[in-house]
């Protein structure tokens, strides 16, 4: 794996690199999440469901709904940030003006 190349190993601030400083270890975490998700989908047919509302009994409902929720939250949040973000002194300007009036 190219990420295990020692030349890409971060030498952070002259201190010994930690486990997460290696890209390959970050990849391990990533793929282990993918693996656990896969396992949770594989077990779907092997347990008895008690769907509350009908549609929550669909195959892997909680899985895809959770995934979708995360993606929607991030993508909508990103657009919201574009519209709503202002500089840190946005309100302090107003406060300053208020004081001038006072």
């Amino acid at each position, binding site marked *: 794996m190219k990420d295990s190349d020692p030349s890409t190993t971060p030498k*952070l601030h002259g201190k010994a690199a930690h486990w997460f400083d290696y890209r390959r270890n970050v990849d391990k975490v990533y793929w282990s999440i993918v693996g656990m*998700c896969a396992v949770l989908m594989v077990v779907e047919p092997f347990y008895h469901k008690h769907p509350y509302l009908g549609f*929550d009994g669909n195959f892997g409902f909680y899985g895809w*709904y959770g995934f979708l929720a995360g993606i929607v939250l991030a993508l909508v*949040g990103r657009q919201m940030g574009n519209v709503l973000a202002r500089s840190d002194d946005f309100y302090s300007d107003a406060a300053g003006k208020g004081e001038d009036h006072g």
Partner: protein
Amino acid sequence: MFFELPPGLLLILGALFLPLLPGTWRKAYMAFLPLAGLWALIGAEQGLFCTFTLFTYEITPVRIDGLSVVFGYIFHIAALLSVIFAWHNDDIVEQMAGLSYAGAGIGAVFAGDLITLFIYWEAMAITSVFLIWARRTDSAYRAGMRYLIIQVGSGVLLLSGAILIAHQTGSIAFDKMTLGTLATWLILIAFGIKCAFPFLHNWLPDAYPEATATGTVFLSAFTTKCAVYALARGFPGTELLIYVGAAMAVFPLFYAMIENDLRRVLAYSLNNQLGFMVVGVGIGSALAINGAAAHAFAHILYKTLLFMAMGAVLYRAGTVRASELGGLYKSMPLTTIFCIIGAASISTPLFAGYVGKSLTISAVAKGSHEIVWLALIFASAGVFLVSGIKVVYFAFFGTDSGKRFNEAPPNMLIGMGLTTLLCIAIGVYSTWLYNLLPHDVDYQPYTIDHIVNQLQLLLFTALAFAVLIRFKLYPPTISSINLDFDITYRKWLPAIYNLGIRFTGEGWKSILRDLRKGVQHLVAYMFRHHGPEGILARTWPTGSMALWVAFLLGGILLIYYS
């Protein structure tokens, strides 16, 4: 009751003696007070206590029953944990404010009438603002001022509603109310402000992140959960609350997603968790009220733990901005572990949040509120993403900021450790929490399908986060202010006011200017015609004028006597 003192008053009166005690004794005494209160509550009988009559109204300072006692327990526990977490802090203002604020919160949940509730309600506002001001920065002062105005305003609405109810019914008892009159609407709005309903919520993400590292830990526990209790007591089964709660559970998540200040992220996610409790109150069934109470109990613990972890980071790093942190697991490993457990406690099986939240979600499903249920499942996934994964990732992992700090002080670690133990204990042994709830519970959170479904929800949410980070789709962490509804009173209303002042000022000036001009014109006109050089003064008829005056006087005399 301890020394026959009502619960809560012990902490408030006890706080008055703090300045008399030297350093370590004072801290031991601070820890003793909530412990003593808790001990007294464990042995307390249910019923009404210390009642007396005031101007024909029955005042009930203490009502101990199933609903109040569960909040009473967790408030004492939260006070104790917060005191331990703040043990290193020698600021007497903060110590007194923290303890008396906790006392006011405890007093409020045991209040049996609206006037007692109002007194504790306002006491909470006045004592808690010092936890914000104790930060001693300009922005904390301003945020504290806004917070105080809104909180006191909530009390004024509560008092107005209470007076109207007293006038209409002749009773000030704090019991279940039905929406429909002005009085009940005023009281609902008063509760709604403290519960951070949509559009009334801005004080929460505005003020909590401005408080001190230890102050926010106190703040996160009492005010909002006291409001949840008040709603559960006053408005159970009010359908409107189901939809208000669902909106509350969803919309703050988007703000939490893009917010850079990690304590503000937690404040928004606190708001979102209140939504679950409000939905539970709105449904109003025994299962749902149990859900709201159990969730409040669990939520206080894990949110306290998360605010403690961020408090420890703020204490050491001087900032909790995601854009300035990262890689802190290297130098603050224990705080990292506690924060991860706090994140897991939001809704992972074997942790507190799971056993608390499951009740409400089941109650929603049993009520066949499909859309609300979908909103709550979305909110469950979302809060795990923003309040759990995001906070842990950006503070302790993520891109290494290169900053290294000492681990949190021992008392902070002990505070976080004890909270962690409680989060796990309640998660593993849910019976202990369920036995405290106001209604008898026959609910089993640990069934195979429930565990698998919950793990699917959480792990796939984690996968979504991992994918977003890997493909650089996650909203960038930029230091900024995100506009929320508070722009109305922080920017627009002052701007309209200033515009109004300028407009009326300019308008008045121009009216005066026109009047002055008019008078000048009139005087000039008169002078031109009647002045010494005027056209009517050419003949200078002084004699004829005297004649005309005499003639007029004569006329008046004739009219007078006729």
